[in-house]
């Protein structure tokens, strides 16, 4: 591909490569991450086929789709678990090659998987800094780490934890999610990818996590969130991307969708209502 994604956006030619319906990209928002023609095969299985996706900064993009639609494959590609079979990835307009999780972290992409990857036997501060501890003359600088942790949690309006020296094993599901997200944010991430962040949570815990997602985007951080729960999607997302059998069948502002059309897209891969809504917007 000759043109940069910015040019694509200006001419809106990014739309329609795989025939997505209603994938109008608003040209005003700068694209943090753009995927073009991403394909990923595992042997004969094509898990991703020609995916084009734009993720703007400071917005919440919800990635929805049925089981096996390719959502996880897509985020694993973006976060460097494996490289795409073909296609290009642009980060702030520059083409990048992400082959390892470390490459992704370097760019500012942080992924919070469903299992959260926290150590229950360590406290919040120790988990937040795991693998990148502050040191002073070679020794752990507990005070500076504790102060920074407290500040990060405060910035994210996480007020439910009593002490940052609590063991993570003693936290509720929502609090654990908050710690995992806060850890991602503290690493100066520009894009935070959340895999089913509310899947195992109750009502009030879910509300906490959704608030946290809104706080992230208000700080200018792009959020890509996988969710099965359309209530959550419609309460936090600015944009929606729908996957169906390995293709990205539709993506665009949330206003182009409603609950019924989203369900239709997820289950059949197309919806006349989305096209109609997109046209009316």
């Amino acid at each position, binding site marked *: 591909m000759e043109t940069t994604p910015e040019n694509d956006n200006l001419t809106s030619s990014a739309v329609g490569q795989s025939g997505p319906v209603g994938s109008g990209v608003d040209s005003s928002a700068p694209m943090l991450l753009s995927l073009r023609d991403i394909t990923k095969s595992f042997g004969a299985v094509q898990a991703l086929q020609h995916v084009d996706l734009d993720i703007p900064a400071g917005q919440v993009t919800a990635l929805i789709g049925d089981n096996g639609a390719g959502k996880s494959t897509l985020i694993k590609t973006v976060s460097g678990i494996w490289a795409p079979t073909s296609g290009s990835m642009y980060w702030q307009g520059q083409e990048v090659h992400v082959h390892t*999780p*470390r490459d992704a972290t370097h760019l500012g992409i942080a992924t919070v998987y469903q*299992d*959260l*990857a*926290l*150590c*229950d*036997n*360590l406290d919040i501060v*120790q988990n937040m800094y*795991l*693998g*990148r*501890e502050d*040191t002073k003359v*070679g*020794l*752990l600088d507990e*005070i500076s780490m*504790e*102060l920074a942790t407290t500040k990060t949690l405060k910035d994210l309006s996480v007020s439910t934890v009593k*002490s940052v*020296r609590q*063991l993570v*094993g*003693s936290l509720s599901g929502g609090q654990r999610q908050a710690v995992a997200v806060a850890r991602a944010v503290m690493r100066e991430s520009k894009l935070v990818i959340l895999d089913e962040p509310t899947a195992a949570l109750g009502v009030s815990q879910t509300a906490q996590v959704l608030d946290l997602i809104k706080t992230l985007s208000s700080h200018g951080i792009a959020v890509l969130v996988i969710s099965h729960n359309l209530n959550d999607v419609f309460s936090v997302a600015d944009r929606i991307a729908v996957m169906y059998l390995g293709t990205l069948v539709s993506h665009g502002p949330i206003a182009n969708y409603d609950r019924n059309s989203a369900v239709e897209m997820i289950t059949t891969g197309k919806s006349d209502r989305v096209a109609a809504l997109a046209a009316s917007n």
Partner: protein
Amino acid sequence: MLKRFRRGDSGMIPIVIGLIVLAAYFQIRSSVFLSTGNLTNLMVQATIFVLLGIAEVWLLLLGEIDLSAGFNAGLAGAIAVILVDQQFHWSWYFAVGLALIASTGFGALWGFLVIGLRLPSFIVTLAGQLGLEGLVLWIVDSQGTGGSISIHEPVLYNIVYGDFTPLFTIIFIVVTVLGLSFSLVRTNASRASRNLESVPMLLMLLRIAGLVIGGGLLIWIFNSNRGKFTPIHGMPFAILIVGVVLGACTFIMNKTKPGRYLYAIGGNAEAARRAGIAVNRYRLMAFMMTGLISGIAGLVYVSNLNGISDSINGGTLVLYAVAAAVIGGTSLFGGRGKMVHALIGGVVIATIYNGMALIQLGAPQQYIATALVLLGAVTIDSLARRGSTIVK
């Protein structure tokens, strides 16, 4: 404190109470038990359990175990004894150096097998135990001294039978108490100055008072005359070795990245890996530390026995060491434990061992009593943890 206990965060309080009960019982049955001479003797008896216990904690924190540590200690002891005496007459530092290199090397070998081939450490080190037992028998018996070799070299002999002068004993203990108190106060003050949660003044004073009383008792115990014919005063060198090993290991675990990473790997290895920690490198390090400290334990052990014999029971020793760590509060499943657990557990085992001998009970009763204490300690720990918020 009751609240902390319910939270499963009881620390070592139950086991310290248990230790006091044991001591009181033995004192009632035998007036010799709490004499300074016997207490020094008890501490020297504890050194082997404590050192091997510390060695095991390194691996227990990862959810691994080293069943060969007892014979690895025996091997290191045998190498040192043979090289300084017999026909070799090596300088003690070369002999000790080679002994520790050997024990560390065997630790590394188990590590390579466990990490590289993904074999369970229980089986690898069980094979290691049998193999090292064979090796110890072979090199001890090949000396042609009838299965036991005694020490004629002064440094090795004096690890246990040499003492610091009473003055140095006082200086050493006072400096240790001052240093620990100072570091407690300074950490707390710098936390308080940044409005972080800090320990209240009264609790701080209590802790320091505890250190001072403990130090004072140790000075009194070590510096009282415990000789029957000629006066013997001062702290045995072996106690210093235990103190230095315990202090260094605790420091690594609490203040450095490798220590933090070992806890993280023991808690959730996958999370540690994703955080960019070179998990296998730290696991290998733990196996090597276990080997190294087993070797040190072996040197103290042969000094205490004043030699090495082919009937050394490394299998029982290692089980006592694991028991010491567990009695102190270290989990077998990884992620939870402290070096000091080996100290407290080792002292409990030595107390049973020493007290039972004083009241003239035999080996059968000693084994059964140790079994009951071990079961009791894990039961209390498990019950305290049941309603707890700590996962493991």
